[in-house]
């Protein structure tokens, strides 16, 4: 069975088309990273899966059930960390979890759940005083109640420090090992890479790519190197040699800074070319392709194909 199935999903708001015919299948047991820049339509998609928002056209199925018709039933078997949520400030973490346990007819121990997300010390404190990161941990713990078949996490690392983000990824891995399907959205590439089996990229309301992480890495290829040289006399020979490298696409000299567009593995060859031609390298930095670059590289590929 498929965990999530979107078929020609379209959503128009008053003045914008948020989703423009999205078809997507997420298999059971997959960890699926839903990528895209802010405003691409990720949250709208998730909001439709959760029946917060009704599609203009097309359909969404969650765990084989229509997301609109059977949302309460779907709620029994999923765990959700929505975007732009808030907790109940007058209730403690324990009371929040007791409420969710009761709602899902589960039997989880609130203490054990909070230990998993690192919030056990605040169990009896009213959630009104929690920091953003603590609220996020509490919401994650609420999503884990009742061993859900599917976890839907919208930008789960928002408000977490790097340590918290790492713990979040750990929880995602644990849940995946247990057999759960995980569907999470992010606009930060590095978070998606390390935990996902499959990645989907949404841009301007359209799914422009669905690929494995390896496929994504290959496409990511390009990066930009900026090399600061101590001496520009005779640099042309070095630049010619660099231009001749197969993995280099673009070389540009600006006083003492050389900007080189190249593939990731070209770094050593570039530095060697400077050295071989007697040009001292004072400093260099590399800029990874940003998510936006990645999107454009995908769109270009689509056009070429």
């Amino acid at each position, binding site marked *: 069975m498929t965990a999530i199935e979107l078929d020609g999903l379209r959503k128009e*708001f008053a003045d914008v088309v948020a989703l423009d015919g999205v078809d997507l299948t997420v298999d059971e047991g997959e960890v699926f990273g839903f990528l895209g820049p802010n405003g691409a339509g990720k949250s709208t998609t998730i*909001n439709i899966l*959760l*029946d*917060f*928002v*009704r599609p203009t056209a097309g359909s969404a199925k969650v765990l084989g059930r229509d997301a609109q018709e059977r*949302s*309460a*039933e779907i*709620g*029994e078997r*999923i765990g*959700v960390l*929505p*975007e*732009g*949520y*808030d*907790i*109940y400030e*007058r*209730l403690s973490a324990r*009371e929040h979890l007791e*409420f*969710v346990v*009761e*709602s*899902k*007819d589960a039997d989880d121990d609130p203490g054990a759940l909070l230990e998993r997300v690192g919030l056990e010390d605040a169990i009896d404190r009213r959630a009104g005083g929690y920091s953003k990161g603590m609220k996020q941990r509490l*919401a994650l713990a*609420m999503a884990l109640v009742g061993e859900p078949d599917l976890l*839907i996490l919208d930008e789960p690392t928002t408000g977490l420090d790097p340590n918290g983000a790492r713990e979040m990824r750990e929880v995602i891995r644990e849940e995946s090992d247990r057999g759960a399907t995980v569907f999470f959205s992010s606009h930060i590439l590095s978070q998606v890479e390390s935990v996902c089996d499959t990645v989907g990229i949404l841009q301007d309301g359209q799914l422009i790519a669905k690929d494995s992480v390896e496929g994504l890495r290959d496409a990511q290829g390009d990066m930009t190197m900026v090399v600061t040289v101590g001496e520009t006399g005779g640099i042309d020979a070095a630049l010619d040699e660099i231009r001749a490298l197969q993995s280099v696409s673009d070389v540009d000299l600006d006083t003492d800074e050389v900007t080189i567009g190249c593939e990731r593995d070209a770094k050593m060859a570039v530095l060697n070319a400077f050295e071989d031609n007697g040009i001292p390298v004072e400093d260099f930095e590399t800029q990874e392709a940003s998510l936006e670059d990645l999107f454009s590289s995908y769109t270009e590929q689509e056009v070429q194909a």
Partner: protein
Amino acid sequence: MSTQQGGFAGLDRTLRNTFGWYAVSKKEFKDAIRSKGLGLLGVIFTILFVSPVAAALYLDFGAGTGQQAQAIQQQGMQFLLSNLYTNTVTLLVPIVAIFVGFAAISKERTSGSLKLLLSLPYSRRDVLIGKVVGRSAVLGVPLLASLGMTALFLVLSEVTFKPELFGLFTLFSVLFAIVFTAITVSISAAFSKSIWSAAASFIVYFYFTFVWNGSVNTIGQLLQQELGVTGAGSWHTVLLLKLLNPNQAYKTLTNSMLNTGDTPELSARLSMFSRNADQQTICTDVLNGAWTTNTVQIGGQTAQVPTCAGGGTSVPFYYSDPVVLVAMVAWIGIAAAVSYYTFDQVDL
């Protein structure tokens, strides 16, 4: 002790399995009851209800065996209920209901906690019903507590305590409170901003409390003068419209309960009409009464005063107390149903 707890836990589980909204209402009550405003609510209610009795108690009002004292002892309870408490409830309870309910759903929608709630196994209907039930409890519990306190003071005072009267008054008042809570919570579901929800609730309150009655009288006049609907037909319309207002329904119910004559329902309904209404037609053709004259002594002179006595039959069943009560309580369902219709369509 342990069996007692088992009983509660068992009931809790049964309710949870039977009603989708039960856990929502429980959470709602737990959350809202901690608001500082609600403690204040209990205090305000208690002061308003208890202070007249406490004052009477302190002043030894109605003590002794004199004629006046006896009158106070016998009629004190009715006096308090009809002149004081009924007005307190009709004016104050809706305002408190607005305070308790205006943000019930709109605030969760603005803050986003509604998303956590709806991602659990709850439909929007469960959330709406759970909110109505939970917030009703939030208003009902302090109201009941303060009425209980009032009963205690009444028992201690010289005024004769009439449990059946006080019990009915409590029932009507709590139902009235629930009606207005349901209306405000329902309004709250129709707005994405609490400020709009509050404004709409106040307009509804203002309309029910101060405008409805007058506009119904005007409709009656229009029917008679402009449209030529004369006689019983127009008065039936006026009375039915009046009874549709929960505020009026509550008042006429307590009125009917407090009337001591042979025809409490008849007198209560009749007193809903304005002075210039055609009392005779209303008495005989609308309420099944008999139009007679009473001989009364006014300042040593004898006068013939027309009056409405009970006819052979009671008032038509659709004007009887049980039906009026049902009509009042029906507002809970009407408000929730209308609200659900909009709330269910909307993108959150």
